[in-house]
């Protein structure tokens, strides 16, 4: 038998041989695991990564909470869309304004609302009488710069699925087949399997994220809004029995244009895709014999979408009032489908957004119109939440050229970042840090390392700005690089 003490070289050699064997096995196993990971990586489904559900990869189970992460502080109530839904109120304002200016009065409920909210009246008046005329004038002078962005935005919004045009008790239910028979609800075996099925097909239909919740009636408008098939807009909206569940689907806006807001970005790209997804999901549910109704951006809603997305576990409300998701930050344009097909529901999640937003405030500092509060949450209809001034926010939308909007709060939010290692690591830190020390550290880095333009420079020149954008537009939206404006024949579309 060999004595190692007498033959140290042999001992070393034996060790190296054993180490080589172990390394070979470990390396081989590593390669096998690497190969397995590469073989199952959804991002290898080129062009279909999204439809395979690859992006909704955040481990929500770890952050599930029993109650949604917003506080109920008093008796709750439903919002009155006639005055509290910005676009509905402004449409009513414009219809009534000429009469009012000539000495008439607003009709109810606008009259009472403006009496109790004179600051909102002033913002609505400002929009119609000053901002919109200034925008029209500046579009003539500076609009060419945004010609490609306008064309892109219009093209993205050009595809319109069949809009909802009837009340829930008629519109939501399956249409008769060609032979006149009406599909009856099929017996679904198991609510969990149905939920899995709905989520899978939602991804297949193009949704980036999807969540399911029971519909809280508080999120349904107290009165219907225009273009939803209701004959009397002043008759209270009864929540139909078949609006038992809400499925939330949605997609992000294109990233490079987003970073070029205001407003080389557009919402139309995501709106259009979210509409198409929601219409497909509703059609799928109808085909199983169940009622379904879409509530989609760009057409109209019977309800408020953000709190439903929170209930469905897709994210949490941020200081800017928008839902922040783990995967997309607040670059998420959702739509909702209400239905009664029996499904297992998701739990809300709490991944630290509330604490982070209390510290961060970057969106409030960068908001050109000061519409985002630097202060605390307030109580609205019994819920404690952050609230923005939607009237001054919308006035800012109308103070930029190109595809309408501002979106600076979405753009500058530290959660709205590309899903690379750096920002994924930051998300992991904020989501898992019980001390919350990282909130201040990461906010400090964001403020000191990343350039932030002067918020007032985002306005159109007539309103004191410079048509600035947060970042340079992508090369394919720089109109001056493609179009010869000096020839005098390039005014189309401006």
């Amino acid at each position, binding site marked *: 038998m060999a004595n190692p003490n007498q033959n140290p070289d042999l001992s070393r050699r034996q060790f190296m041989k054993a180490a080589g064997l172990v390394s070979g096995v470990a390396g081989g196993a590593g390669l096998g695991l690497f190969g397995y990971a*590469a073989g199952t990586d959804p991002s290898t489904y080129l062009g279909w990564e999204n439809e395979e559900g690859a992006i909704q990869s955040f481990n929500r189970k770890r952050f599930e909470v029993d109650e949604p992460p917003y506080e109920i502080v008093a008796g709750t109530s439903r919002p009155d869309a006639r005055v509290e839904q910005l676009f509905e109120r402004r449409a009513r304002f414009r219809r009534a304004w000429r009469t009012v200016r000539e000495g008439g009065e607003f009709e109810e409920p606008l009259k009472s609302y403006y009496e109790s909210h004179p600051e909102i009246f002033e913002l609505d008046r400002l929009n119609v009488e000053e901002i919109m005329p200034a925008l029209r004038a500046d579009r003539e002078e500076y609009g060419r710069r945004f010609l490609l962005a306008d064309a892109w935005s219009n093209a993205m919004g050009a595809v319109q699925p069949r809009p909802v045009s009837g009340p829930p008790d008629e519109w939501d239910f399956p249409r008769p087949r060609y032979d006149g028979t009406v599909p009856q609800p099929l017996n679904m075996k198991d609510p969990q399997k149905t939920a899995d099925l709905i989520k899978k097909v939602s991804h297949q239909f193009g949704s980036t994220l999807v969540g399911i919740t029971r519909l809280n009636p508080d999120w349904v408008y107290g009165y219907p809004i225009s273009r939803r098939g209701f004959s009397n807009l002043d008759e209270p909206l009864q929540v139909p029995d078949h609006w038992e569940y809400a499925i939330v689907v949605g997609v992000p806006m294109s990233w490079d244009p987003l970073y070029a807001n205001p407003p080389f970005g557009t919402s139309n790209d995501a709106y259009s895709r979210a509409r198409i997804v929601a219409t497909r999901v509703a059609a799928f549910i109808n085909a199983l014999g169940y009622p379904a109704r879409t509530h989609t951006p760009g057409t109209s809603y019977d309800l408020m979408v953000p709190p439903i997305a929170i209930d469905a576990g897709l994210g949490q409300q941020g200081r800017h009032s928008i839902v922040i998701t783990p995967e997309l930050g607040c670059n998420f344009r959702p739509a909702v489908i209400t239905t009664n097909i029996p499904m297992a529901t998701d739990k809300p999640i709490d991944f630290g957004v509330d604490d982070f937003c209390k510290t961060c405030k970057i969106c409030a500092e960068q908001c050109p119109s000061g519409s985002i509060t630097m202060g605390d949450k307030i109580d609205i209809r019994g819920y404690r939440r952050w609230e923005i001034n939607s009237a001054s926010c919308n006035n800012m939308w109308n103070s930029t050229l190109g595809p309408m909007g501002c979106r600076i709060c979405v753009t500058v939010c530290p959660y709205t970042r590309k899903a690379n290692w*750096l920002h994924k690591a930051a998300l992991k830190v904020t989501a898992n840090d019980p001390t919350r020390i990282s909130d201040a550290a990461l906010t400090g880095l964001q403020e000191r*390392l990343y*350039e932030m333009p002067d918020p007032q420079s985002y306005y159109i020149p007539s309103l004191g700005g410079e048509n600035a954008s947060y970042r340079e537009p992508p090369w394919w939206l720089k109109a001056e690089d493609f179009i010869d404006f000096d020839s005098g024949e390039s005014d189309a579309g401006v």
Partner: protein
Amino acid sequence: MQVFNSGAFWFVEGILFCLMVIGLHLWAKDKSIPMTWWKWAIFLIWVCIAGFSIAFVGTSLGENEAGAAMRGGLFFGIVSVISGVGVWRLLLIGTKSGEPRQT
């Protein structure tokens, strides 16, 4: 550029890291610098800091954030250099003169 986002790249990166560790091991042995477990741990932490600094600059440039690349590179670079000097002095602990032996 896709190759740098591939598994093959990390495989090569792993080989390079191993060679670096072997090189440090042999260098320390030649200089009679005792490498304890905590020295290796500190060295690995420093490698992570320095690697993060370099990767931050590259990532920021890739994101079209040249300003962040410059400011971040400066900040994390200084942190890396200062901590690198500290790590160097810690590595020398245990040698007779506190300096590496000349061979």
